[in-house]
């Protein structure tokens, strides 16, 4: 890994995260139609891992420039609100299994695609903080992509989409994660002063996304106690195993 060009390192780990999404079809392939509570725990797992990533980025990824980081965070929230408004998905039920309107399928894939782009920014920013840190964030987001794709598969399969196609769509929706990770890394390498802004941007967007897309759905699908436990456990794992920062 050390011999790789830094951009290749980012490319490799971000790709791993994106392709991990393909594994999300396995629960449906093996078990068939999933119980609602399982979807809730999947959402909670995805939310907790994302919360963990946002937490370590916020508390350790900003050794300097916390003020710019906070401004970047507010900007991240603003951009997510804007894209949700633009795509008409701000208050959309993201886990409607029985909505067979063709427009709904596109909207859900679009939401997943926009969501994945921010995770790419987070991976790119974390790699700039330090490589071990960036790798651990990429691994956390790779695991996060699995339950996220599991929920997407459940929606797509309910609409008659074949599982191989669902897997391809899940990976496809995450490909811009790879692109955003590489672009973020390259741009901020060239302009290091932007790092606190970009770390803040990623934190603000990640928090806004997990709080508006993942958690609200999960509370409808399983009991509050189990949702809170799954999310906290996932967050704790990220905090426990995240790689060193300089």
């Amino acid at each position, binding site marked *: 890994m050390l011999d790789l060009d830094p951009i290749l390192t980012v490319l490799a780990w971000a790709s791993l995260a994106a392709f991990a999404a393909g594994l999300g079809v396995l629960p449906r392939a093996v078990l068939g139609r999933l119980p609602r509570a399982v979807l809730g725990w999947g959402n909670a797992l995805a939310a907790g891992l994302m919360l963990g990533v946002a937490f370590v980025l916020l508390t350790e990824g900003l050794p300097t420039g916390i003020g710019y980081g906070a401004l970047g965070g507010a900007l991240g929230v603003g951009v997510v609100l804007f894209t949700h408004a633009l795509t008409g998905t701000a208050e959309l039920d993201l886990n409607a299994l029985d909505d067979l309107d063709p427009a709904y399928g596109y909207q859900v894939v679009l939401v997943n695609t926009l969501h994945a782009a921010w995770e790419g920014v987070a991976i790119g920013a974390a790699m700039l903080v330090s490589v071990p840190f960036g790798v651990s964030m990429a691994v956390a987001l790779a695991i996060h992509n699995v339950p996220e794709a599991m929920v997407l598969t459940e929606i797509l399969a309910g609409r008659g989409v074949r599982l191989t196609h669902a897997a391809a769509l899940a990976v496809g929706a995450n490909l811009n994660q790879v692109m955003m990770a590489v672009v973020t890394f390259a741009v901020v390498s060239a302009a290091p002063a932007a790092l606190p802004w970009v770390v803040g941007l990623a934190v603000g967007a990640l928090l806004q996304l997990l*709080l508006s897309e993942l958690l609200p759905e999960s509370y409808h699908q399983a009991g509050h106690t189990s949702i809170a436990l799954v999310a906290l456990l996932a967050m704790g794992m990220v905090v426990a195993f995240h790689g060193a920062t300089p």
Partner: protein
Amino acid sequence: MAALQGLPDVALVFVYALVTALATGLGAVPFYFVKTISERFVAYSNAIAAGLMAGASFGLVSEGSGHGRLETLGGAVLGVLFILGTQRVLGDHDEEELVFGAATGESARRMLLMLVVMTVHSFSEGVAVGVSFGGGMTLATLITVAIAIHNVPEGVAITAVMRPRGVSVTKCAGWSIVSSLPQPLMAVPAFLFVEAFRPALPWGLGFAAGAMLFMVLVELLPEAYHQGRRARVATLTTLSIISMVLFQRLL
């Protein structure tokens, strides 16, 4: 930082934790002017409280990690188990049962149950204030402010349940404060404990963070989503988390 106010002593810990308890009484104040408070307003207050509590927990975890990452996480597990345990002891009340607004026209038992639940919650919040002094004055101020602000909507919730049953606003304020009195009472022994046994500090910081984060996820956020628009809840919570971390760094 600690040098600013001299060494934090028992009296200071008590006063800080008393401030958080008194803040609960502020939740009754709006009822002097209005009969009911809109559910949306309470939802967004809960969203802000959730963000402040989560941001404060982030502060506790990063302070604790400096003393030992695994000990902090061990403490967090204990904090979660403590809240789970109190939920069990208080009986399997339905999670929806204590949601603000769902309480109208119900038995007095619910009023009592609500007070008991809030009082038990206050235990871990008192522990949080106490142990945070072990991490220095900045952390202590951060945690105190977060818990004090979080207590205000708790007071609103208590008053909203008691007021329609003919309890006076002053008495509602009084009961709200009573529900938070465990805070000063628990803060002092928690503080003395981590001062006497320094190795216990990351455990204590983790305990407080785990208990607070669990309450955010099991109560504050679901209640906020229940009555509010989720994009707005998300924005208020996110900005509160970021402000809290910013506030801690700049202080």
